[in-house]
């Protein structure tokens, strides 16, 4: 058997290993990229539709399934073109011509100073009612969190969906559960004519969320920082959209 303790062997082994592993992973990543991209596109469409209330949360008999159910991937493309009528990219208060809102990378935009950010806005229509779907991107406890919120003409939240990259399972990861996302429906982002956003509040003594005009939803136990991240994300993003929604309606 070869001597596996020598320096030459060690360096040789390391070199070969790097190339073998690097080769396998690179080939795999390139090969699977189209399929992964496609899945990510479907997911984005599903989330946008979910925020404006197009989902399969109720079964055929109208009974609530109690869990998060997106439009299935095989139907989402069609549903997306049916429901989303227009989309815009706003930068520094003006609508940019010839930009595809769907292709704006929220992660890149979040690193730019506020005045240079491109803000995508999707306008959907369901049962003759207009929905303004706004993408959000922010920080949770461990990693990125993001989501979509839809507003109506009166700036009342019609739906919200959140997701995360690495929040703690069972705690912060619960932002993608129905009980948290549903609380946002009907909330107002204005307070007496002034912008207030929505705060994920601890101990607001309103766990069923009966009062919708207090700009507050109930926080999740054990996930303070994720909840605060959601608050900051919503507060800082929605504000820049208000003038545009008022112009569009």
């Amino acid at each position, binding site marked *: 058997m070869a001597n596996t303790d020598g320096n030459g062997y060690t360096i040789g082994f390391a070199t070969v290993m790097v190339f073998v592993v690097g080769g*396998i992973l690179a080939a795999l990543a390139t090969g699977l990229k189209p399929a992964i991209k496609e899945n990510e596109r479907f997911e984005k469409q599903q989330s946008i539709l979910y925020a404006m209330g197009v989902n399969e949360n109720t079964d055929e008999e109208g009974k609530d399934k109690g869990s998060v159910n997106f439009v299935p991937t095989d139907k989402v493309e069609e549903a997306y073109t049916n429901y989303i009528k227009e989309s815009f990219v706003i930068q520094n208060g003006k609508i940019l011509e010839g930009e595809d809102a769907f292709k704006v990378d929220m992660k890149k935009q979040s690193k730019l100073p506020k005045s240079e950010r491109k803000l995508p806005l999707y306008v959907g229509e369901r049962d003759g009612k207009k929905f303004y779907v706004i993408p959000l991107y922010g920080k949770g406890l461990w990693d990125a969190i993001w989501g979509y919120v839809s507003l109506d003409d009166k700036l009342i939240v019609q739906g919200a969906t959140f997701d995360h990259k690495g929040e703690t*399972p069972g705690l912060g990861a619960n932002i993608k559960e129905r009980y948290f996302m549903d609380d946002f429906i009907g909330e107002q982002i204005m307070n007496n004519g002034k912008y207030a956003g929505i705060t994920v509040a601890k101990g607001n003594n309103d766990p069923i969320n009966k009062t919708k005009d207090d700009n507050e939803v109930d926080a999740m136990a054990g996930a303070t920082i994720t909840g605060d991240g959601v608050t900051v994300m919503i507060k800082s993003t929605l504000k820049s959209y208000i003038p545009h929604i008022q112009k569009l309606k």
Partner: protein
Amino acid sequence: MGLLSKKDQKLILDPLADDNPITIQVLGICSALAITAQLKASIVMAISVLFVLGLGNVVISLMRNIIPSKIRIIVQLIVVATLVIIVDQVLKAYAYSLSKELSVFVGLIITNCIIMGRFEAFALANKPWRSFLDGIGNALGYGVILIMVGFFRELFGSGTLLGFKIFGDPIGNAETGPTGLYALGYENNGFMLLSPMALIVVGLIIWVQRSRNKALIEEN
């Protein structure tokens, strides 16, 4: 288990009880604390570790005669990271919703000390089949504790199991108010959802286990 010899059976059964990776060897505590707030997360993690440890042990065992001892830890880390990334990428392409479910666990699996511990302590010195059994046994032992902790934490922390409401509805709707036990004044223990409580639950399991089997108690 007629298929396996006595010695092989020991490889699977010992880690389940008297040589449990979490309660006896005290490995893998970090992930046991981090992800056991819900039963479902515990089960997902247990299955993932079962897969990675079983496969990883075989790969390391096959390579055991050619791995230079000076860089063996790095080689082990690369093997486990490669395996996890391959699985993650394939799931992302063909089972997207499952991969989203698992995404949070990827980092936790790579750095799980049980995996490195078994590579180092067993797979480097044993044949592939025995290493495979050792990996499966240890992953099962790990999973059993994870599921036990997850069970108690979700039940008493959220009053649910796998999302089903066991003790009734703490909030209810506007007309009825809380239902089930909550109507009688029962409250969920929020502390159960936090990591320190996982440590306490693991401690209690260790206590029960050692008081039933006195041979496990170390001297002094």
